[in-house]
């Protein structure tokens, strides 16, 4: 549905986005991650046709954004950063205006506005002027604007920014539901959001894509990925530590806590041998007749990956 090819944007001599290529299919929710100023918003602005790229192509539902901008824009719903709204209109008249701009007039327009108001829980503020709304309502009004014409493609720049935890949860659910039949791109700083709503994530840093994969694949890149946390008792801590350290798959052992009964620690595997490690540990415990309190493989943490990827490659 969305194809981005070698997209590059220069602002003066500075490259904001450099040679970015990716694809999003129907049914995919793509999370766009990256530190501030990494080029997330610029990329989204180019995909939605707001700013022209310096070079590269954007294809939306098979339409070239540069050649047929009006046709292409019709397929997209866009929530810009900071949820801008016309301040001197009411929620209702703002949404009616957007409906008309989207070519939904009369009964169709009313239906679309009603549906968007219901979906985004705006019923209570419908007749209220936009500049008297709280931040959460402003955000949801802008979200309503983006989904009003039931677009095939949704692009959202920080859709949960400024919402309270309940609203965040609600919006994530909404994104996930809509993602089943649309192609969605959204940017965020909140990593748990990626795990909660995305089928795939891209990490962008200094204008280039530095990682692209499912949240699971990304997590596997963390240093801690594949480590096994264990807690064994009935054998002296020092002995446990030494012997576990000698197991074939174990690169090193971190001690979390120890006492007279035993040891709680983290066994880090050699790369790619995480799967063996659990088995080895278990066999060792049986052999030593140690009491097993815990043997649990650890998933990598996304924030660790994020930090590792976005800080290590800065020159």
């Amino acid at each position, binding site marked *: 549905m969305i194809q981005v090819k070698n997209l590059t944007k220069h602002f003066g001599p500075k490259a904001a986005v450099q040679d970015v290529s990716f694809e999003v299919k129907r049914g995919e929710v793509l999370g766009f991650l990256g530190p501030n100023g990494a080029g997330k918003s610029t990329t989204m*602005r180019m995909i*939605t*046709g*707001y*700013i*022209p790229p310096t070079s590269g192509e954007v294809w939306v539902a098979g339409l070239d954004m540069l050649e047929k901008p*009006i*046709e292409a*824009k*019709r397929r*997209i719903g*866009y929530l*810009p*950063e*900071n949820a*801008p*709204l*016309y*301040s*001197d*209109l009411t929620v209702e*008249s703002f949404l009616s*205006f*957007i409906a*008309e*701009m*989207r*070519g939904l007039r009369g009964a169709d327009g009313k239906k679309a506005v009603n549906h968007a108001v219901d979906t985004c829980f705006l019923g209570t503020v419908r007749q209220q*002027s936009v500049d008297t709304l709280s931040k959460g309502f402003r955000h949801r009004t*802008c979200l309503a*604007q983006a989904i009003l014409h039931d677009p095939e493609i949704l692009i959202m720049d920080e859709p949960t920014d400024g919402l309270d935890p309940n609203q965040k949860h609600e919006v994530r659910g909404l994104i996930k539901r809509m993602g089943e039949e649309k192609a969605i791109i959204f940017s965020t700083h909140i990593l748990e959001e990626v795990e909660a709503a995305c089928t795939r994530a891209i990490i962008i840093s200094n204008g280039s894509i530095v990682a692209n994969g499912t949240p699971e694949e990304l997590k596997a890149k963390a240093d801690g990925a594949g480590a096994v946390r264990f807690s064994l008792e009935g054998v002296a801590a020092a002995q446990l530590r030494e012997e576990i350290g000698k197991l074939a798959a174990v690169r090193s052992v971190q001690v979390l806590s120890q006492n007279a009964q035993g040891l709680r620690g983290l066994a880090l595997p050699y790369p790619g041998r995480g799967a063996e490690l659990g088995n080895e540990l278990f066999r060792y415990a049986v052999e030593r007749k140690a009491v097993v309190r815990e043997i649990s493989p650890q998933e990598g943490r996304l924030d660790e990956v994020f930090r590792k990827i976005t800080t290590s490659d800065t020159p």
Partner: protein
Amino acid sequence: MSAFSNIVTILKKELRSYFNSPLAYVLIVIFLLAAQGFAFLFGGVFERQEASLTESFFFWHPWLFMVLAPALGMRLWSEEQRLGTMELLLTMPVAPWHAIVGKFLAASVIIFLALALTFPIWMTISYLGKPDHGVIFAGYCASFLLGTSFLAVTSAVSAFTRSQVVAFVIAVAVCLLLILAGFPPVVQFLNEFRFGEMVAAFGVLTHFNELAKGILVLRDVFFFLSVTGFCLYFTAVVLKSKRA
């Protein structure tokens, strides 16, 4: 979706914005007070003893519109940029020129309303004497053309900046230049250097006065329409270069 319905949609929304805020009312009332006040106090509608509005009433319009058109138009594009709504507007399935024309027309409607509401002075003059209604109608047309070309100037200026105040001040300055270019004392002064007439050709007063006298010359109408057209086109150029 035709260009026409897009423009109408934007025009309607802009009008709603204007009338949801006090701006439109305030400006219309100020225009009415000033236009009629100047005519009666300084223009000498009665003292002239003639059934005409050209010298007493329309005479002041360039100076009034010099301030009021920028006040009306300063928000056109600077507000869009300040609020960030330009990003919404220009990612809708419409061409940028639909938005530019729609917004310009909405502000023009307000100038039209303001002028239309000065009808009591026309009634007064008709009651007191036998004016040439054709000339008065021409005066209104001239005034409308002048006001809207000042609006177009303001539209172009407001595309440059996020600040309404800056847009206002610069637009007033540009309008003042356009007036002074045809202002008799300035023209006389410049004539000493032999290019007074050349500069006057670009002055709005030259063309406005001809039209307001009831001399409907195509050249003068064309002047205002081309200033308007050029400024709206220039608005598009500025907005495009801002996004590039």
